[in-house]
């Protein structure tokens, strides 16, 4: 019998594992449930702060829409019969170190 309400119920852990394509053993579900619950409990600390009206920060560079001109790099490709011919990206890589 749980004396303290666990923040993560067993079904919830299973559901999340399914969403994340992870397979867990019974032992893992049990152990993770307790550990994740205590971590989630710790996150509740953020509720102490008043943040209405505060903008979210998703990244700190201030950069926006970093793009380059939509031009093929002619140095890397050969035009042939209306197509571009270019080097293969994947080739058999033999390990330089065993």
């Amino acid at each position, binding site marked *: 019998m749980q004396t303290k309400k666990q923040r993560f119920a067993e079904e*919830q852990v299973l559901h999340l594992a399914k969403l994340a394509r992870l397979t867990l053993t019974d032992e893992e579900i049990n152990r993770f449930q307790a550990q994740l619950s205590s971590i989630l409990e710790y996150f509740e600390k953020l509720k102490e702060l008043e943040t209405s009206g505060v903008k979210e920060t998703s990244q700190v560079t201030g950069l926006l829409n970093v793009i380059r001109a939509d031009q093929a790099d002619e140095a890397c490709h050969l035009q042939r019969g209306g197509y571009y011919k270019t080097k293969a990206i994947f080739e058999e890589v033999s390990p330089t170190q065993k």
Partner: protein
Amino acid sequence: MEISKLSLRQAIDGLVQKKFSAQELFDATLARIRKLNPKINAFITVVEKPSPSAGSGPLSGIPFSTKDIFITKGIRTTAASRVLENYLPEYDATVVAKIKEAGGVLIGKENCDAWGHGSSTENSDFGITKNPYDLERVAGGSSGGSAAALACDLTFLSIGEDTGGSIRLPASFCNVVGLKPTYGRISRYGSIAMASSLDCVGPMAKTVEDCEIVFNLIAGPDPYDATSLEKENPRQSKAKLQIGVPKEFFSSALDGEVLQSVKSALQKLQELPEIEGIDEVSLPHTEYGIATYYLIQTSEVSSNLARYDGIRYGLGREFFGDEAKRRIILGTFTLSAGYYEAYYKKAMRVRTLICRDFEEVFKKVDLLVAPVSATVAFKIGERSGDPLQMYLSDVLTVTANLAGIPALVLPCGFNQAGLPIGMQIMGPQFSEKTLLRVGKAYQGITDWHQRKPKLS
């Protein structure tokens, strides 16, 4: 003097002056790795036969290594996880390519917490990296292998990555230097992603001077990393700098000897001509750093680790370790419908408050000096049973990642038991040159960084 014990600066000079050859330098370093690595387990992969130097530049003939999260063409890259235990990359990370272009010769890939998940290098699927100053203690994490290798002179420079303290904590536990640059300063192209808005690639070395040499070579925008950038720092040529000491970093939780060492360091810094004075300042949201960081980071981790499906490369998801699974589940939860607002969005707002704390403080001072960790290196197994306890190891390092500001860690003392204590110097975005300048000056009047572990 054993040539592998030289600093990077001395090794470069020695090669130029033909005191020894690049082959001799490589052989000496490799011999040392063979002798000492079995004791500390700093390396996952050792490159026995050096590839001929790609370029001839400032690092010509210098053996270098990287944390095993940077992909290296033709050389196994594992992220210290069984999922990638046989992964052979098709190309080099930008950082690796730059060092090779400058003449560096790759000698090995260093151990770390798998996927960067950890503060001790106990979460590696390739064994624990031990602290060279006390083999029963951790090297710190997640770049523990890099720090331990440098401490034992098994490499001349290592590239690490810092998402929540992963360069700085091991540097301070192992008496070496580590720089976490401004977010975006160094390209992340080819680094195995952990949390994309927080990951910072950075140099680790034996001295601040060495660190600066590497930083200058690898920093700069990269067309392959759309988050990379460079900006002018308006305070760069300021002659006299004001130091701020953030009171929240000096709580009663701080170990007495750590406090003493950092206080002594502050007195030493005050002796330097470049330092104007020292002020007490406040970063009021520091105590919310861990919750904010672990919330945002695990969310981003759950997304970044979704690519490991075992179909195109690597083994399946059942090969993830416990910590990876925990973080993925947590992150999946915080991003899921119904919880996204209360958790992830909330954390992003608190992140704004933390950024503002630093902006405010840097209006009054130019630099911040603080401890890196509340304690010295802890014992192996001491915190690994309780994930939250382990997360709290990062309480003094995470806010710099949330704000994207640079921080330099360097040795500032030892405790009675002979364990290293480091301090961190933080500055506004793009102030790396200032941090390095002050760090070099401090190392000019102290010699903590010259002390080596008895092991070596």
